[in-house]
Structure formats: structure tokens, C-alpha cells
């Protein structure tokens, strides 16, 4: 992509110079009609795909969210009723929003820093680095379906390993069934996976940090902590952005694990689960589910826009 944009911007730069002929000649030399046709085709295909596969359905969902429709009977417009019902009468909605927020905050403030911490430790080249690296990264390779299966084996009230290890056989804790505990039990597993992912990203970033920078800092009298926060961490900025984006995406798209554990009910409600629970199924509440999907989209767009604004501002600088 960079390849094309490079070229495309160059003619624009020439607008600053006086003398139109130069510009025209430059353009003619650079883009034959064939080039233009190829560009149009190559840009057109992704744009068409983007519109047809992403924005089209999104717009359709937004429209459907103002209707009541089960996919079989006639569609009935009910204005904003769906939204009113979601906010007022639909018991799982607010818990779902709240759980998504907890999910995001937990990943952002607990799991991600832990991943960074482990990366820094491993970057010090302690003995057995390779082993730790693989061991911590291992969960990332597992599909969430398998993680869900592991969750059942570990957390089950009746035969789970955790109750056995903790010796809670007389009064077993219902890790997955008790709504005050199950979200945290799941988040531990999510973190288990997320930490490995973040660690590998930071480890790669840390390897690329110029050791001379650290040397210079220590010559200037900075201690380890200062060196890390004042010198190393700022140079990791590109990685930080990637990790931030991944963390937000993970929190918003969270679905699989809770769905496998209990279909995302009883303490494990998430917005994504509510969307699918309402739309997928026999007598689908397509309008109602679409309204939930629109809410989720708006929240996601909030993050996407913030991120893009940041990136563009950065580029301008």
C-alpha cells in the first residue's frame, strides 16, 4: 500500500510549484491511462468489497434496528422502541456493558502491564529465557474453544481441579456458576492468553531498542527504573500503539470463551453475546439484535476514531 500512496502524493506536491505544464507533463509521464485503469481497478475492488461487505451490512443493521422483524413475518417499523427496551427492560444489557468495561480495564491495567513486565525480565537474558518464552507464549497458540474446555476441567464445582487443589471438597466453590466469581475466573484465563501475546510483541520491540541508548542513560546516572521509563519505554511507542489496539479489540470482540462456558449468561453477559443470542436462532429477533449490534458498533467506532485521529496527528507532525 505504501508503494502506491508514495507515488500518488508526489504529483500533489508539485502543485506548490508554479508552472502548470510541468505538472501536466509530470502526470502524463507517470500515469498512462492503463495505469489509471489499473489503479482504479485495484483501489476499486477493495473499496467495493469494503462497502459491500462491511459498511453495507452495517448500514442495513442500523436500518433494521428500527424495526421488529423475525425474518419470516412482515417487517414492522417500531421507531426507537428497540433501543428503549434494551436500556429499560432488557435485564442482561447493563451487566453486559459493565462486563465489557471490566474486561477492557482488566486487560489494559493488569494483563498488558504483566506482559510488558515479563518481556522486560526475559529481555535481561536470564537463564532459560527460551523456555520461559515458549511456556508463556503457549496459551496464545491454543484456540479459545480449547481454553473453554480447560476452564471446565479446572473450574467445575463438582470435579474441577481447582477445588481439589484448594481442598474445598466439603464446600466447593462454584467458579463458573456463581455470578460474583465467574467473570474473574474467566478473566484469569483471558489474561493467561493475553499476557503471552503482549509479551512476545514487547520482547520483539525490546530487542530492537538500541543498547547504546541505555548505556548513555546509565552513564548520565540514570538507575534501572529511570532508564526503563524515560528511555526504553518511549522508544517502544509503535509497539505500545499496537498493543493498545490489540487490547481494545480483544475486549470488544470477547465472545468465544464465555459462549463455550455458559452461552454468555448468568454473570458472563457480554454485548457480543447478546447480539448473537438475539439474532442467531430460530425465531430471530433481528431488529432487537441489530439495535444491540449498533450500540456495539458505536462503542467500537469511538475507539477506532480516537485511534485514527491519534495516528493522523502523529503523521502530520
Amino acid at each position: 500500500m505504501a508503494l502506491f500512496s508514495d507515488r500518488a502524493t508526489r504529483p500533489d506536491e508539485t502543485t506548490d510549484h508554479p508552472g502548470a505544464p510541468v505538472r501536466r507533463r509530470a502526470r502524463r509521464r507517470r500515469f498512462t491511462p492503463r495505469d489509471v485503469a489499473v489503479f482504479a481497478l485495484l483501489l476499486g475492488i477493495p473499496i467495493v468489497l469494503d462497502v459491500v461487505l462491511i459498511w453495507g451490512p452495517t448500514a442495513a443493521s442500523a436500518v433494521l434496528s428500527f424495526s421488529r422483524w423475525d425474518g419470516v413475518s412482515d417487517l414492522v417499523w417500531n421507531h426507537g422502541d428497540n433501543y428503549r427496551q434494551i436500556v429499560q427492560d432488557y435485564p442482561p444489557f447493563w451487566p453486559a456493558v459493565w462486563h465489557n468495561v471490566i474486561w477492557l480495564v482488566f486487560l489494559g491495567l493488569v494483563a498488558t502491564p504483566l506482559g510488558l513486565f515479563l518481556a522486560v525480565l526475559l529481555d535481561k537474558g536470564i537463564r532459560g529465557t527460551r523456555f520461559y518464552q515458549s511456556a508463556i507464549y503457549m496459551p496464545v497458540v491454543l484456540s479459545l474453544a480449547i481454553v473453554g474446555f480447560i476452564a471446565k476441567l479446572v473450574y467445575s464445582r463438582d470435579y474441577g481441579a481447582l477445588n481439589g487443589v484448594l481442598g474445598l471438597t466439603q464446600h466447593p466453590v462454584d467458579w463458573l456458576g456463581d455470578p460474583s466469581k465467574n467473570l474473574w475466573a474467566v478473566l484469569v484465563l483471558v489474561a493467561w492468553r493475553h499476557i503471552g501475546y503482549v509479551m512476545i510483541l514487547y520482547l520483539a520491540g525490546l530487542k530492537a531498542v538500541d543498547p547504546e541508548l541505555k548505556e548513555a542513560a546509565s552513564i548520565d546516572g540514570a538507575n534501572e527504573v529511570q532508564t526503563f521509563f524515560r528511555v526504553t519505554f518511549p522508544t517502544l511507542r509503535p509497539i505500545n500503539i499496537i498493543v493498545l489496539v490489540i487490547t481494545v479489540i480483544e475486549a470488544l470482540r470477547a465472545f468465544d470463551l464465555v459462549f463455550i462456558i455458559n452461552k454468555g449468561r448468568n454473570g458472563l453477559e457480554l454485548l457480543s453475546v447478546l447480539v448473537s443470542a438475539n439474532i442467531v436462532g430460530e425465531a430471530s429477533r433481528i431488529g432487537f439484535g441489530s439495535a444491540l449490534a449498533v450500540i456495539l458498533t458505536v462503542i467500537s467506532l469511538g475507539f477506532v476514531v480516537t485511534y485514527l485521529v491519534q495516528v493522523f496527528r502523529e503523521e502530520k507532525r
Partner: protein
Amino acid sequence: MNNEPAGSHPAFSTPLSHASLSRRALMRGAVAATGAVTVPSLLAACSDDSGSGGSGAKKTVTVGSNYSDAVPKKALADAVASFQQKSGDTVNVNTIDHNTFQEQINQYLKGTPDDVFTWFAGYRMQFFAAQGLATDISDIWGDIGSGYSDAFKAASTGADGKQYFVPYYLYPWAVFYRPSVFQAKGYTVPKTFDEYKTLAAKMKSDGLVPIAFADKDGWPAMGTFDYINMRLNGYDFHISLMAGKESWEDAKVKAVFDTWASLLPYLQEGALGRTWQEAAQSLQQKKAGMYVLGMFVGQQFSEEERKDLDFFPFPEIAPENGQDSVEAPIDGYMISKKAKNVAGAKDFLKFLATPEAQGIYLKSDPNNVATNKNADASGYTALQKKAVEIISGAKHISQFMDRDTRPDFASTVMIQAIQEFLKNPKDIDGLCKNIETQKKTIFATE
């Protein structure tokens, strides 16, 4: 930053420097590749269409089946083979994964459905009949009707009084127990709800879990609600409530939850974290004394252990209702509105209604019983025989909550509501109020 690894620069610039020449070729390749990807899929789409439409000779009946597990799939194939031999017609069975089939039934029936499809009796059948997606088969009921009791005919009848469904097999819900445990401890089968609770209390003092219980998946607890409602308020009220015609804030509904709450101390703890399979295992391991579930509970028992498995009907609560209703979901067949070979499809359904066809199927499935009252019961296990007994003795057959009401109401409102009740049995008023509010919006379409 002159310390960058020297190697990285050339590595990046090499493709760029050659780009002016190779880029165009590359693009062309990319376009060609895109074409190559789309064209076959278009072709495939075309051939797919012509495949289902074109080959439909008059003698072929297509069947959309959700019998995706190996045992029922084989059992249906046996029945189909017997029909083909008898009639000379060809039957093509398209098997679709059980859950997928249910989730996509709307799109399926609106799109290009098979002539015949597997489905469930009760409200779920009536829903599609009312949408005009099923073919009226009242005429074949003239022929097959004599093989079925009235309760089956009622379960096959749409809201307009016409028949749309042929029952194939069913299984009852009841209170399962292990006779050896009852014998060893001297328990007797309870007849009334008070006796049931007394027995449960006794089991508790004997160190047993009185009643196994699980509701992690959200639906198993519905059976208990259905039974308490039918025993307390009667079948008619239950069906009317399920059809959205009664208020959930009615004192009668609150009484159901109150009655259930009085049972909670005897139910296995931690139900929301347990699947029905795990609860069934606690019965199988004799850790639990009783379990309210469908006859499929037997799947968690070995064949030998199944001989030590028995059940009794859910106990009587209000004497005027006695034990006159049984919850027994019926699986069967319907003909889609868009069926191409209606005559052939009707022949096939007539065959499936015969005792012989049901016998072929049930030979390999010990957790169900035939719906035709003349079906050969000689091969039945003791459990199956007893199932036939309580079903044929029942005045009403209910289908289970998620079949007797709108599926969206069952799955997006009632599952959550029942789980909420199990978590917090104190706030029944608030719970019923919320169910009623949501019910009104969901049933408003009708």
C-alpha cells in the same frame, strides 16, 4: 541513529528498486488472481442451484433432516430404505447439524426447503403453519388418525384447526430415580408434592443430594417450571401462559415460583455451573436420589445400569389437576409450502406414521418411544414400556417450554429469568413484572 543494523536497508529497498518493471506484472497477476478466486465460486453457486432444482424428478422426495447424530441418522436411513423398497420412490435425505438446522429454520423454509423436514410439535409447528410455510396435511390425517390418540392429534394441529404435522417419536419428562437406592433406604414413590418434599427431606438427612439439578445451559430447569405450573394451575392455563395470553404477573404464576422456591433447599446446589450430564451422573453414582429430566437421562447410564433406572410422574400439587398432564416433546415431520413433490411427500409421511416405520426407527434408539399406539412394544425396555404407559394414560401432552412458546421468548427472556430466580428466589414480584414487560414486546407482533 546511525547504529541501525546495516543489513536492514538493502533488504527493504531491493523490491522497490526493481519495482518499476515488476510492479505492473505484479498487479496484473493480482487482478488475474482475484478473478481466478471469484469465477469458480460463481460457477459453484450456479451448479449448486441447478443441482437442487433440476434433478427433481417426480418420483423423488427430498427430506431435510436434523438427525445429525450417528444413531438417529442410521435409524432414519433404515426407515427410508424400507419405504423405498415398498413404494419404489426415491427419498433423498439431506442431513444438517441439529443445532444449525434449528438456527437456520427461518431462512431454510423461506429459501429452497426440502419437500419434507423434521420438526417439533406444538407452538413451534403452529408458528410456521401460521406463517404459511407449511403444507396442510389434514387429508392424510384421515388415514393415519386412527393410529394416534387425541393428545397427539391436538399436538399436530395448527391454530387454524388443520393438521400440519406427523408425530414420529417422543420421550417423557418425569422424576427419575434408582430403584436399588429406594430399596436399600426404604423409600417409597411419592404421589403428592408434600410426600415428595418429605421424601426429599429424608434423603437429605440420609446424606444424599435429594434432587439432582442443573441449569448451566439454561433450558433443563424449564421442565420443573412446566410441571409445577401444570400441576398447580392446569394444562390449559400453562399452554395459554406459554402462548402469551396470560399475564406473568398473575398470582397463579407467582404461586408457581413460590412453590418452586419451597423446593429449592432440596435441589442440588450450584445448578448454574452444572450441565444436565453432570447432574445425571450424580444420579448414576447414587449421590443424588432423584432427578427431574427427560428420558434421555439414560444416555449417562450404561446399558446394564439402565436396568436400575426408573421414574415416576411428577407429583400431584392441586387435586383437581392430579397428574393428568405429561411433558413429552414430540419429534416428527412436516411438509414445506414450497415442496415440489407434495404427493410423494404425503406418501412418505403416511409411511412414517405406521407402527412398522416407527418400529424400525426405535429399534436403535432406546431413549424414545413410538407415537403410534399400535406400534410393536415387544422390543421395548422396561423404561420404554413405562413411558408408553404414562403417555397413553395422560389427558394432555405438553411439549416443553421452548416448544410451547415462541422460541425467542424462551431463549432471550425465560432462560435469563429462571436463572435469575434460582440466584435470587426472594424477588418474585420484580421478576414476574420484568418477564411480563418483555413478553408484551415480543408477543406484540401477533
